[in-house]
């Protein structure tokens, strides 16, 4: 028995060593003939669409096959930075505008402006181009999906309370939204606890929501003073913070669980009718409703709430080419194919996000009321690019300053004055470091 175990173990070890010494993967000539495309699609439909488009490209261009590599949102930053620093980069990669402008500033990306054809330049919305354009006119990525925050409501809850849902002709103001949320907050069992909250908003890592929704109040947070970015939290920036805080603690019309949860994590509670409205959720959240809502659950999309305007901030998802790529022209040809009118529409539909091309938005699929596309698409005209786009250090600022301070504020550990003071003070420490670095 002992000998059998020893012989078995020896065979396993020898086999493994032989396997390791064999040529692995397709390393030999793949690096010279294949374009490597790192995609961040991760939902089932989006993955299938990306793979299908790459397969179509490969069938049409056997001389220049594309290798599809599925990256992940949580790790792509480290993956790319290591690649940029060592020169071992993918030829095309998928990421988001707020991050790639930082890469562009550090000289890692190819300027795509000279390679963009007029058809694409004219069709992609200006707001999308604004998210990737550098002050010198360089374009660091081709935008193809636009992030847009939407609000959702439970049709039956509003109907039972005799509340007429808002429309684009008659949108709700934030004051009206507050009032409706109070009316919809009910203790049906009369046991002293709230059984249904008027609203919920995922406030974990809330910087994104706060920044983008504050634009409607005229808030910008990032300003340029003497050519340098500084953060200011003035009256306009404080309005949204104050409104949400009041709804949480004075009105008690926003579910307290909002403070520790992300928007998508609140969807099951929305299905269980624990909240009548869910605001500040990405347009892609509709996918969960269409695919997983209980059969008797009827829902609708709230047009952007009106503060001074109905404007909402946006960022885009992009395809870029690293400067270290040796096949820039070929990579751009692939991007043109990937982001053609037809393919961009397929990508947007499968990811449930707004396409960056105006011609796509006109298609019937993007105006379907049953899936909420009609209101989502109509909201696109309110999308604006925040002043923070292109600010050096914005990504670090968001994770190290804005998110933690806002978390403390919304959980009631800081007053509005304390929170805004800390945001200004700590933000400018981070930003000044980037600006001193000359990046």
């Amino acid at each position: 028995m002992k000998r059998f175990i020893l012989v078995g173990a020896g065979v396993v070890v020898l086999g493994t060593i032989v396997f390791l010494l064999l040529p692995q993967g397709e390393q030999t000539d793949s690096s010279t003939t294949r374009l490597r495309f790192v995609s961040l699609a991760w939902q089932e439909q989006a993955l299938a669409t990306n793979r299908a488009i790459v397969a179509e490209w490969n069938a049409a261009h056997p001389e220049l096959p594309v290798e599809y590599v599925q990256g992940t949102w949580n790790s792509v930053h480290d993956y790319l930075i290591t690649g940029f620093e060592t020169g071992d980069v993918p030829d095309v990669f998928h990421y988001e505008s707020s991050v790639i402008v930082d890469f562009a500033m550090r000289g890692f990306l190819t300027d795509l402006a000279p390679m963009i054809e007029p058809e694409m330049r004219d069709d992609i919305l200006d707001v999308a181009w604004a998210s990737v354009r550098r002050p010198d006119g360089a374009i660091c990525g081709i935008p193809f999906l636009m992030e847009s925050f939407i609000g959702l409501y439970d049709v039956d809850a509003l109907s039972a309370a005799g509340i007429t849902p808002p429309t684009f002709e008659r949108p709700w103001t934030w004051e009206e939204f507050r009032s409706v949320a109070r009316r919809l907050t009910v203790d049906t069992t009369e046991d002293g606890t709230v059984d249904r909250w008027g609203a919920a908003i995922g406030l974990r890592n809330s910087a994104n929501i706060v920044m983008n929704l504050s634009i409607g109040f005229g808030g910008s947070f990032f300003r340029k003073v003497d050519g340098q970015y500084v953060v200011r939290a003035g009256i306009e920036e404080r309005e949204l913070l104050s409104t949400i805080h009041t709804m949480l603690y004075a009105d008690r019309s926003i579910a307290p669980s909002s403070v520790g949860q992300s928007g998508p994590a609140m969807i099951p509670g929305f299905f269980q009718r624990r909240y009548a409205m869910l605001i500040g959720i990405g347009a892609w959240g509709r996918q969960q409703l269409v695919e997983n809502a209980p059969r008797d659950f009827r829902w609708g999309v709230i047009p952007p709430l009106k503060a001074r305007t109905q404007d909402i901030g946006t960022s885009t998802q992009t395809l870029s080419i690293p400067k270290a790529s040796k096949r820039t022209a070929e990579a751009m040809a692939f991007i043109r194919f990937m982001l053609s009118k037809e393919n961009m529409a397929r990508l947007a539909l499968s990811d449930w996000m707004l396409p960056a091309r105006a011609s796509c938005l006109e298609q019937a699929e993007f105006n379907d009321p049953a899936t909420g596309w009609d209101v989502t698409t109509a909201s696109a005209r309110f999308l604006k690019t925040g002043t923070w786009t292109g600010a050096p250090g914005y990504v670090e600022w968001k994770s190290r300053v804005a998110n933690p301070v806002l978390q403390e504020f919304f959980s009631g550990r800081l007053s509005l004055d304390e929170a805004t003071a800390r945001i200004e003070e700590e933000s400018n420490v981070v930003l000044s470091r980037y600006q001193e670095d000359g990046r």
Partner: protein
Amino acid sequence: MKTRTFIADLLTHAGLILFMIFLVFPLVWMIATSFRPTAEIYSGTVALLPESPSLDHYRTIFLEQKIFTSMGNSFIVGICSTLIAVLIALPGAYALARYSTRWNNVVLGWILGSQIFPVILVMIPLYILLRSMALTDSLIGLTLVYVVWALPFVLWMLHGYVRTVPLDIEEAAAIDGASRSQIIFRIVAPLLLPAIGASVLFAFVSAWNEFFFALVLMKDPNLMTLQVELARFTGMEGQARTGPLAAASVLATVPSVVLFGFLQKWFSSGLIAGAVKN
């Protein structure tokens, strides 16, 4: 007196049962979620067992991702790095424990110090070094990295155990005519089975669960390890495809559990076996 002992036993066992539940609950929840249809996951219903169990998530992970390939890759680098690390560490630990020189403490301090380096600091130089030897995008390169990663801790752990083995036993073996290598592998090693078992488990689980090196060093989709594959079920800002992620995580847990089951008897019988060895 008897009643007091009974109550103490009862409380001890109740505490242990609660602790067991605390430890096992996440595993049970993960297994249950892997069989729960997506609509049921999103319904927010709190139930330990799925209402209508389904294999959809297992089907998804096998059809959509190269789970078996990545498991195979993880298994290969895990086994190889574990074997190499333990085989190097065992004589190294013996030498450090038995041959006293003025450098011993320096070496041990260096080993301990190497553990405090953040991975991100060594990543770029390591990548460049491995690339110069054509070892990026290669399971051999990844295995070497895992050996280097596990070796200091394994060496440290075995060194502590070797010091607990009475020198008299080795001297008796030497009087009986055993050579130095015979003493190490036939006398000391069996006494160290619990430590070797723990080292094997540590080195294997470290390699099996490692993510960042595999992510950065491997480019070919066919050479990805399981942890990199698992991450593909997560999306922006902490979102995840919960069902497929749970199913893949169940599969990822199996080898470590099996290895622990296999090594468990070493933990309990190693020293006894050594003590009675003739």
